[in-house]
């Protein structure tokens, strides 16, 4: 087997050194009855040629988004990722290293995490950030738990514009805690007023901007309301590219920022691995979950980095830890850091403008279709449209002609009234005029 270096002779000589007769002597502690006498009933090993053939056959049964005119977003965004990003993250020194527990030989990882934290803080407008979480949704759950610790209150309010996956993830995580979630109803028009829901026991209010329907809103009034009542404002950003153009959470009074960095990091990947971004105020740092890289000096007085403030973490604090997270999204954070480095101030902002410009074009084309109404006044790269028919069958039909028209709101809100005819459609810098025209024509054709 190509991945196993020990030969029969190696094994024999090693057993000799150990003083065992056969390998099974080393498994003495395993109850004899439970030991398998033979390999389990699964196919035997296969060479690279055969394995690649099997995998290509499976891959061939899918339609990559890039082969279609794709307007899918709703929590996962397809951006162009420069070739240098994927090249660099594949370097063995990054790819095949572990969490940087030994900083002297992990400065590469530690330095990029420090850079990542700085980038996340900058784009979100926050003071400090951690070294990543699994994804945005679980980050929102961590934020709710953190707000509980910070405020010692138990009420968590979720906006009706929060992505249902995020909302549900928060719900799951709070279910057996002593915090309680109140979720506002789905708010396709972007009209809800959460301020009225805040009470003296509210730990935090969780909102998303742009929200799951694409609406961009001013959160400052809500932040003021939170502050007045002693609650924290958690702002979620599922489309990180929006931060290049939209007023960042940190400038609207946000206390905890949670972001999904997938779009500028690992890519689509059918939903994972993704990249949780998490930032907050400096004064909350000891309640922040997840790893943090910090600056220090070495024995020669040279600058270097280490994982720090680990007394917050499970391996030190165990059941009192801020979170149970251990492995996070290191390599996705690296992809993000590299991509952000390539973009820089100018590129990041222009990328956002391009997304917005294409979305404006898309929205205009959609609005021009008879019977179709765009629900958004203010948006970034995504809008919700009301169709005269149910969205899901239409989307399925169009997919056959390689037009992925958008995400039916009904898929995110199964069984929720008023959602069936809504379609959430998204553009990006990769969207061409031809794509938009293909969408327009396909919809017109189907609605005729």
């Amino acid at each position: 087997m190509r991945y196993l270096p020990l030969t029969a002779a190696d094994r024999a000589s090693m057993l000799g050194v150990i003083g065992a007769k056969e390998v099974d002597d080393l498994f003495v502690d395993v109850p004899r009855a439970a030991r398998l006498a033979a390999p389990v009933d699964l196919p035997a090993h296969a060479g690279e040629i055969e394995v690649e053939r099997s995998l290509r056959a499976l891959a061939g049964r899918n339609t990559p988004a890039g082969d279609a005119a794709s307007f899918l977003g709703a929590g996962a965004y397809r951006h162009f990722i420069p070739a240098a990003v994927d090249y660099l993250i594949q370097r063995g020194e990054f790819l095949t290293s572990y969490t940087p527990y030994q900083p002297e030989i992990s400065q590469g990882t530690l330095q990029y995490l420090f850079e990542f934290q700085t980038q996340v803080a900058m784009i979100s407008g926050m003071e400090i950030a951690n070294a990543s979480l699994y994804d945005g949704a679980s980050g929102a759950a961590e934020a709710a738990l953190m707000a509980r610790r910070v405020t010692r209150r138990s009420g968590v309010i979720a906006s009706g514009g929060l992505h249902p996956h995020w909302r549900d993830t928060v719900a799951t995580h709070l279910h057996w805690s002593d915090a309680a979630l109140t979720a506002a109803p789905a708010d396709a028009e972007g009209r809800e007023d959460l301020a009225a829901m805040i009470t003296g026991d509210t730990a935090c209010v969780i909102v998303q901007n742009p929200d799951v329907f694409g609406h961009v809103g001013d959160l400052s009034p809500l932040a003021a309301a939170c502050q007045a009542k002693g609650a924290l404002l958690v702002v979620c950003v599922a489309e990180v590219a929006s931060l290049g153009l939209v007023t960042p959470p940190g400038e609207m009074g946000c206390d905890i920022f949670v972001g999904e960095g997938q779009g500028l990091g690992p890519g689509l990947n059918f939903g994972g691995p993704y990249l949780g971004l998490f930032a907050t105020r400096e004064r909350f740092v000891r309640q922040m979950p997840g790893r943090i890289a910090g600056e220090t000096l070495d024995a020669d007085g040279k600058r270097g980095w280490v994982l720090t403030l680990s007394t917050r973490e499970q391996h030190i604090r165990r059941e009192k830890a801020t979170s149970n997270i251990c492995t996070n999204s290191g390599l996705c954070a690296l992809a993000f850091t590299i991509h952000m480095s390539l973009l820089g101030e100018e590129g990041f902002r222009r990328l956002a403008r391009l997304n917005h410009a294409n979305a404006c074009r898309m929205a205009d084309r959609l609005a021009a279709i008879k019977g179709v109404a765009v629900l958004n006044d203010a948006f970034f790269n995504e809008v919700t449209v009301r169709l005269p028919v149910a969205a899901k069958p239409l989307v399925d039909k169009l997919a056959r002609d390689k037009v992925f028209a958008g995400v039916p709101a009904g898929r995110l809100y199964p069984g929720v009234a008023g959602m069936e005819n809504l379609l959430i459609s998204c553009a990006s810098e990769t969207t061409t005029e031809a794509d938009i025209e293909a969408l327009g024509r396909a919809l017109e054709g189907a609605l005729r």
Partner: protein
Amino acid sequence: MSDSKPTGPRRASGTVDTAAVPPADGGLAGTVSGNRALAIEESLIFEQGEAGRCGVDLPEPANLKPRLGGLERKGAIGLPGLSEPEVVRHFTRLSQKNYAIDAGLFPLGSCTMKHNPRLNEKMARLPGFADLHPLQPESTVQGALALMDDLTRWLKALTGMPAIALPPAAGAQGELCGMMTIRAAHDAHGHDERRRVLVPESAHGTNPATAALCGYHVDAIPANDRGRVDVAALKAKLGPNVAALMLTNPNTCGLFEPDIIEIAKAVHDAGAYFYCDGANFNAIVGKVRPADLGIDVMHMNLHKTFSTPHGGGGPGSGPVALAASLAPYAPLPWLVSGPDGLHLQEEATGEAAASIGRLKSFHGQMGMFVRAYTYMLSHGSDGLRQVAEDAVLSANYLLAALKDTLTPAFDGPCMHECLFDDEGLRKYEVSTLDFAKALIDEGFHPTTIYFPLVVHGAMLVEPTETEPKAELDRFIAAVRGLKARLDSGGADRLRTAPHFSPRRRLDETRAARQPVLRWSPPAPRQAAE
């Protein structure tokens, strides 16, 4: 908090930075530049960037009239501008400051740092997997769902368990998933009184932290002097308010719990569930099926046993194998097969009505599934069994070869990792940390240190099955050589190690006391300057 301070000179713009010319007797590390040939110092990107530089070429949209409701971002974000060559060089240089499996032995106990096949990476990058949006119409992702389905089949066969939950993002989330199914099951049966979870002292920190997240009270159970659960103590703690036992097996001392079947029975008799932390599954994959040991639920780390890369700290993937009694509570989404092919059940209705719900967005770590599945097909059932045997053999080989050099924590053979304590080092007044740092100079990644906590100055050594014997022998020679150095009065050399790494020992106390967690722009220079 203070600002990030570069060691080297700051870039002076507009002129040749003559201030950087050091005295002729040699500056930093004896060179003018502070570099040492291929070991090149590298500043932060924020110290390199320049306005007007950009590493991407994007067209400026024509006549953009923003529709942002007035919420346009105003001030500078502060991101540095770098060209592509600078970015490639920056991250190349950073990478050169890392140790990695690709470079040498990485015997980090409990972490299973095995070879990461490049075929896995190639397959994960096929557009038919990597470029799928999670919310595409299901008819366009049947191959992806089929892969998830077949991965499930493999994991079922290897664990003997009837159900697999794929969503968890890593081991710790797998634990959370598993413990939540237990709590949901107790809830469903009205057992609200079961609020205690028994966790051995030797457990990984994620275990108690996870139990706490489920609202459980953690009750530590002691180890016996053979490094195993003290079965009597365990039994004494079992009772009507115990929800579950969380046990790692093979345990974090690298030992198999020989009484595991008895333990399982006692747990079940007490009305509790048996959670197994399967982080160490590599030791037994293909040799024993957890279901046959009486385990009710176990997470696996695809990034350990199934070779998906650790990537400097993730991403991972932590599928959970579930007994029939816990399967109804599996998290969303469920993969079900229907008349039109495979289908994702994304809501807690019907069959899935009892689900604990969502743990994260979408359907799990697909990128990791592709890699792990590629690995499984490559090894096959025969190869996976060989994996366990070779992993255990290699650990025992190290144990046997080093037992007179270091002090083994326990007698008898180990599983996939061997554990030493610091007894043999104490007389030299050298700590486990010192010894670990000395291994760095020798070209090896240190072992896991100070874990598990039940052993004083623990060194947990996990070679994995993908190390050639020659590399194990080099490691043995290095450990013996360091010991010989101690015997001949060279302790100081170890206490000040490492000497040759990109950085010497780093001041962790300083980092925590005066936290600098991000770069900040330097204060504007004085006008006089």
